[in-house]
C-alpha cells in the first residue's frame, strides 16, 4: 500500500510518534518502532499517565503496565503492576523475546527486569508525592471501593466488608474517570 509505513497512537503524544517513525526509517522492525515510541512516552511522562512519577496508587506508589504484540507471530510480552523499573515497555519486550510466557506481574516482574539488566529505581517524584498527599488530605476521595465499612465515599480505609452485606447497585460508569486513563 502507498499509505505504508504507518505510525498511529492514542492521544497527542507527538514525540512518541516521531520516535517510532525515526526507528522505522532507520531500517528497524515494527516491534522496535513500538518499543522506541512507547519508551519515549515513558521518559517524557506523557500526560502524567505514562511512566514514572504519575498516577500514584493508594499507598503513593507508581506502578506500570505495558504490552507489546507481534502481528506476524501473535507473540506477546506484557508486564503488570511493575514496580521500581522505569522502562516498562522494554521489560515487556524482554518477556516476549526471552521467555515463553506472556504476562509477568508485580515484584516478580521486577526481579525478571533486574535479571534482564534493568536498574531498580524509585518511581515516585515530588509531583506524585504531592498528588498523593492531597488525596489523603481529602479523606482519600475519590477511591474505587464499594460496599465496605467505613463508608469509602467519606473516609479513608482500611476497609472491610460489612457484617450484613447490602449490595448497592453499582454505577454503570466510573465517576472518577477524569483522573486518568489506561
Amino acid at each position, binding site marked *: 500500500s502507498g499509505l505504508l509505513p504507518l505510525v498511529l497512537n*492514542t492521544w497527542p503524544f507527538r514525540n512518541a510518534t516521531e520516535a517510532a517513525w525515526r526507528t522505522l526509517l532507520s531500517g528497524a522492525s515494527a516491534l522496535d518502532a513500538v518499543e522506541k515510541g512507547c519508551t519515549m512516552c515513558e521518559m517524557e511522562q506523557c500526560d502524567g499517565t505514562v511512566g514514572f512519577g504519575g498516577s500514584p496508587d493508594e499507598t503513593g506508589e507508581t506502578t506500570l503496565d505495558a504490552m507489546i504484540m507481534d502481528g506476524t507471530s501473535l507473540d506477546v510480552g506484557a508486564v503488570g503492576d511493575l514496580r521500581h523499573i522505569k522502562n516498562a515497555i522494554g521489560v515487556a519486550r524482554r518477556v516476549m523475546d526471552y521467555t515463553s510466557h506472556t504476562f509477568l506481574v508485580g515484584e516478580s516482574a521486577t526481579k525478571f527486569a533486574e535479571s534482564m539488566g534493568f536498574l531498580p529505581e524509585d518511581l515516585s517524584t515530588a509531583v506524585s508525592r504531592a498528588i498523593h498527599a492531597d488525596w489523603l488530605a481529602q479523606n482519600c476521595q475519590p477511591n474505587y471501593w464499594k460496599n465496605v465499612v467505613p463508608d469509602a465515599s467519606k473516609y479513608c480505609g482500611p476497609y472491610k466488608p460489612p457484617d450484613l452485606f447490602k449490595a448497592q447497585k453499582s454505577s454503570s460508569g466510573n465517576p472518577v474517570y477524569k483522573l486518568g486513563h489506561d
Partner: protein
Amino acid sequence: TIGMVVIHKQGRIAAGTSTNGIKFKIPGRVGDSPIPGAGAYADDTAGAAAATGNGDILMRFLPSYQAVQYMRRGEEPERACQKVILRIRSYVPDFFGAVVCANKTGHYGAACNRLPTFTQFSFMVYNSLKNQPTEEKVNCI
C-alpha cells in the same frame, strides 16, 4: 496511557501500550493496557487497534481484538472503531473510552464515547503522505 500501532512498509504489524494506570488505584490493580486484545491487538492478516480509557470497563469487552475482527470482515477502520464503542456503550452507556484502528493497507480511524466532559479524541498519525507527526481529532459518538 499510550497505545501504539505500527505497520512496516512490508506489512508487518506491531502494537503496544504503556501506562501508569489510574490515580489512587487499589494496590495490585492492573488495567486493560497489558492485556492482549484489550489494550491493543495486532494481526498482519487484518490490522491492529489500541484502546484507551477506563481499563476496568474496557478489559471486559476486548475492544482491540473486536476491532481487528471487524476489520478482518471488511469494515473500514473508523467504522470498526465505532462499532466497538457502540457495543461497549450498549452495556455501559457512560464509559470513558476511545479506540484507534488501522487495517493492513494503512487506512486508519478512531472513535470515542461521547460524554459531557469528553467530546473529542485526539490521536497521532505519521504515514508516507505526511512529512511530520500529525494530530488528528475525531468527534465522539
